[in-house]
């Protein structure tokens, strides 16, 4: 396997009033292509900040972030937006679906950023909904779906444009155990069958078991790595 993501000596600071707080001070990380990594750690350890840096929704103050051999830390806002659209799928704890759109329309959103013709878009949306076993809910709006179903729509949205990387921030944090396991099995399936690289932030050790390996982040450094 080759590296999909490399963080080299990354630093990130936050300013709280006049005080600067270092979240990362020389963080290094390598994620291989096709890996499924769980990141755990206490609140405030920098898990979400790490996910933001990996997803290009936040910027590091120093160091390098390399994605598939290309440095993305120097990208402009526009370049980062285009990179996110083609390379990263996002799954959030609270699904973050558009309430005014149907499941199919929510899934179609990332395809609005492509030049695919309408027919091809519809095909891709159907395929993505089929993968998450929600074809029969395509015309339902989020409020007409259960939490688990909404998260499945969010997963379909994340994979519809066939990105190399999926970033999941507490994807089961709002779900009961059984539903959470269903979602995690879906992520595992995406990793094993479609070769998606997945990085999942979670507090839940049960959820972490679905990953290939778990990284423990504490005070801005990886304290422990378990397979």
């Amino acid at each position, binding site marked *: 396997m080759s590296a999909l993501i490399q963080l080299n000596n990354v630093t990130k600071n936050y300013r709280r009033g006049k005080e600067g707080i270092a979240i990362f001070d020389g963080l290094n990380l390598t994620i291989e292509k096709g890996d499924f990594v769980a990141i755990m750690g206490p609140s405030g350890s920098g898990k979400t900040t790490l996910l933001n840096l990996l997803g290009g*929704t936040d910027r590091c103050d120093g160091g390098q972030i390399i994605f598939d051999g290309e440095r993305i830390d120097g990208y402009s806002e526009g370049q980062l937006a285009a990179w*996110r659209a083609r390379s990263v799928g*996002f799954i959030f704890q609270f699904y973050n679906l558009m309430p005014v759109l149907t499941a199919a329309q929510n899934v179609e959103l990332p395809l*609005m950023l492509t030049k695919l013709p309408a027919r091809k878009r519809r095909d891709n949306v159907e395929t993505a909904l089929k993968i998450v076993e929600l074809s029969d809910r395509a015309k339902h709006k989020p409020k007409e779906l259960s939490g688990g179903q909404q998260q499945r729509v969010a997963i379909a949205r994340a994979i519809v444009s066939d990105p190399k990387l999926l970033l999941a921030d507490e994807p089961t944090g709002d779900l009961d155990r059984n539903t959470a396991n269903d979602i995690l099995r879906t992520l595992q399936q995406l990793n094993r069958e479609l070769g998606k690289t997945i990085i999942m932030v979670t507090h839940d050790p049960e959820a972490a078991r679905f990953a290939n390996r778990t990284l423990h982040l504490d005070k801005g450094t990886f304290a422990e790595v378990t397979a």
Partner: protein
Amino acid sequence: MTDFDLVRKNLFRKPLRTILLTVSIFMAFLIFGMLTSLNVALNRASESGSSAERLVVSNKINFTQPLPIAYVNRIAAIPGVTGVTHSSWFGAFYQDQRNSRFVGFAVDPATYMTLYANDIRLTDAERKAFIAERTGVIVGKSIADQYGWKVGQTVPISSNIYVKPDGRRSWDMKITGIFTGAKPTDSTAALYFHYDYLNETNTFGRDQIGNVAVRTASSDLNTQVAKAIDAAFANSPYETSTVDEKTFAQAFLKQAGDLNFIVTMVVAAAFAAILMIVSTTLVSAMRERTKEIGVMKTLGFSSPRVLRMVLGEALLLSTMGAVLGLAVSAFILAGLSKSPAASTFGDLSMAPIVALSGLLLAITLGLVTGAIPAASALRMSIVDALNRR
């Protein structure tokens, strides 16, 4: 799905709010459409029939005050004057003073028909018949159509000013012609009859007239001729004020006040109120959607594209309200134009320039009301947006 679909769905996520906002904008554009059209019609009416070579001589005190008829011949003798006629406001109505008033003048037919041949379109036969018939009256086509009047018919025309010796206010007049205007949009809600017929049967103001119309050899001579006329009657009991026709017509219309100013102020007040309401509501609506905007940016929608969508919502909202408001005002104006009382103001139907101005105003309103939420969506950082509770 297109960006427009997304804009439309977002705009109607709270239908009641959107409907109420649309109604507010609709009201503003209804006011704009009605008042601006009225103003345009009045300005057009003051310009139509106005000639650069014609002057109007009226009493210096006020144009409602009379002048002696003897002035007509004295004015005709002033150098530069090539034609003279006179007219007197009759305060005409038919049967019901409230609902059937129209412009009515007692004139000297022969000279009036010469000076206003281009503005009052009659056949030669009708013109000759009007001049020959002492009780003759020529009526505009819109009045004739309204009451079904025909040439040869005798109709009682009443005055809200003059009274006959027997106390009646009505004069029987024989229709000798039905005239049209120089342009289809010119008002024809008017009638003209013999001054002599009025003067002989009237109980007051004998041998007095309303104003004198003067044709000059050239518009270049207007200032000089006007000064000469006013100088000729200076220090007399009936001093004169001589101006070109357009100025006179505008002064006539300004009896009701400076309509341009009033219309501008009313429309501005309506739009200022709408601007505040729509801006505040859109800012609040956008704040509710902060997280969604953060998600869209996370998915890869660029900040300029998000800005365009937010502006698009404001533009769609203002355009909907504007199109509805302008359409309804155009419909009402079209109905009013058919009423002879209203057609005194000329053609009230909405002019293309009013519709175009309305649409430009709608775009401006959309851009202004959408500017703050769009700018905040543009600047919004993804991390802050997603962390918003």
